[in-house]
Structures are given as structure tokens and as C-alpha cells.
């Protein structure tokens, strides 16, 4: 396992994320149909397709530049709440990485933390509000606990925690986003944004496992 991750990992991550979001498009749409407006899968696939095309057209020089490019494209193309949320997340993550070429455990933790903080700044959701924050926050905590075990372990811990966090949104009553219109009726269903977060962080871990 590599002791640091570089641009190759970042690009592999983003491609894997795009692939899984395209593959899980209908699943995300179904989740959003029940407690939202049935577009989260479409939004995410459209956003990542555009983001990957942009990375192709204007290849970034560093992991931070890759994340910044994705951020801008997601902001512009997603069309739903996930656009400004993931856009801000990737933008703040890019800022946290600066122009570093190799990312160690601490850099990855800083990246994840900045992403989560960006989503909170943009969406003002608290943990337990049944949003993507409920996947990001346990992911950041788990990554923090795994610092020192190497990048792949840090990202695996984050992905595992995000998956559990997404699952744990099921009993919650939504207090932010469209699902909050449903009130109590939102309970019993998984939050689509928490699920897409889980997919994206799993892609990061898988790419690291291959690095």
C-alpha cells in the first residue's frame, strides 16, 4: 500500500465515483422519489458525467486542482440541492489540499473535514437532520480515528462509516431539504444524499486500495 496518494489516485477516485453514480442512478432516483422529487440519481449522474468530461478536456496538475474542477462543474450542472452542497464540499476540500502533490493521512483527513464543513456551511444541517451530513460526519470521525494507519485505511474507515451513516438515516425525520416537507412521513426511508455520499467515499477507498 502506498504511504501517500497522488493525482492518479484522485483521478481514479473521481472516475470510480462517476461510474458508481451512473450505475446506481435508478437506486438514487428511487430513494429520492419516496421523500423528495425523484431526481437525485439523475442530478448526480449528470453532474459527474460533466465533471469527468471537464477533467478530460482540461487535465488538472494536482489532486486539489482535480477536486476544484469537479466542484465548479457540479455546482453548474447538478441542478438540485446536491449541486451547491457537493460543489462546496469539493471546493473546500480542494482548498484544504492546496497544491500538494502527495497526500498523507493528515491531508486526507483535512480534505474530508473541509468537505464536511463546507456542506454544513452551505446547508446548515445538524447531524440527525437526515441529510448527507449524516454520512459525512461519521466518515470524518472514523477517518480521524484511523490516521496513522495509512491512506487506504483512512479512506476505508471513512467509507465504512459513511455506509453505516447512510443506513442510519432511515429512521430519522427530515429537518432539512425537500424531505422535511414530509415531516414524520420521511421516517422509514434512507436519505438519497447520504447514500450518494456513501458511494462517493467508497469510490475513494477503492481507488486507494488499488493505488
Amino acid at each position: 500500500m502506498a504511504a501517500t496518494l497522488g493525482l492518479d489516485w484522485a483521478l481514479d477516485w473521481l472516475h470510480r465515483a462517476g461510474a458508481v453514480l451512473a450505475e446506481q442512478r435508478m437506486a438514487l432516483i428511487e430513494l429520492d422519489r419516496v421523500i423528495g422529487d425523484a431526481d437525485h440519481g439523475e442530478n448526480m449522474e449528470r453532474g459527474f458525467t460533466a465533471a469527468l468530461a471537464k477533467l478530460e478536456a482540461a487535465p488538472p496538475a494536482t489532486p486539489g486542482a482535480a477536486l476544484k474542477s469537479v466542484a465548479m462543474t457540479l455546482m453548474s450542472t447538478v441542478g438540485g440541492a446536491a449541486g451547491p452542497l457537493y460543489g462546496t464540499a469539493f471546493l473546500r476540500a480542494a482548498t484544504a489540499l492546496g497544491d500538494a502533490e502527495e497526500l498523507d493521512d493528515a491531508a486526507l483527513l483535512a480534505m474530508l473535514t473541509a468537505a464536511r464543513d463546507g456542506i454544513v456551511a452551505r446547508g446548515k444541517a445538524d447531524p440527525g437532520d437526515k441529510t448527507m451530513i449524516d454520512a459525512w460526519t461519521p466518515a470524518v470521525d472514523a477517518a480521524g480515528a484511523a490516521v496513522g494507519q495509512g491512506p487506504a485505511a483512512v479512506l476505508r474507515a471513512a467509507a465504512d462509516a459513511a455506509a453505516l451513516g447512510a443506513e442510519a438515516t432511515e429512521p430519522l425525520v427530515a429537518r432539512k431539504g425537500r424531505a422535511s416537507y414530509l415531516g414524520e412521513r420521511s421516517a422509514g426511508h434512507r436519505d438519497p444524499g447520504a447514500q450518494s455520499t456513501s458511494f462517493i467515499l467508497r469510490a475513494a477507498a477503492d481507488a486507494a486500495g488499488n493505488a
Partner: protein
Amino acid sequence: MTVGILVVSHSAKIAEGACELGAQMAPDVRLEAAGGTDDGRIGTSLEKVMAGVDAANTGDGAVILCDLGSAVMVAESALEFLGDPSDVALADAPLIEGLVAAAVAAQGGAGVAAVKAAAESALALQ
């Protein structure tokens, strides 16, 4: 001086119709619509919002009105990209009712803070 107004909606029709409605009582006010996604679906567009802020603010400032929460998030993102201009404010107001009140205030020469306040104190029904 007249403060410009930007309407950010998930629907291009709502944004355009709102501007037409507001223009009736505010013929001298710059009313800009940023509705729908770039490819014409229901949703919001960062590009449209950023262009709309520029078009609405002709030098005397601008006030932004939004429909749902994700429109607010896009508007806030746009303002961040534009360097958080000090003469552009986001109103926490119901879209249509707030817009008419804001447009009338702007037509009367109110500044950014007063236009925003007019929007925010608009009643649902008059």
C-alpha cells in the same frame, strides 16, 4: 437610483412570470429571472444566477429572491463566487409576494436594505 431584483426559481416559467408581474408596478426597476436549469429542466443554475446578479446590479445594488431552499443555496454559492458583493442582499421572503413588495420599494427609490426589508415584510395576502 433603483436597486435591481433577481428572481431565482426552480422553474423558468415562475421566474419569468414573477418578473412580468413585478414590472407592472415597477416599470423602471431592473427585474431579472434566473429560473430552471441550463438545459431547461426544473432546478437551478449557478450560471444563470451569477449572470442574473450581474444583470440586476446596474450599479445601485441588487436584492435576490428565491423559491425553495436549494435555490437559496445556489444563490449563496453564486454570491461567494462573486466575492460576496456588499451591495447584493438575499431576501428571506416568499417569492411572489416578496417580489411585488420589493419591486414597488425599488421603484420608489429605496436602497438595498430597504428593498430587502420590504420583501421580508410582505404579507402573503393583501
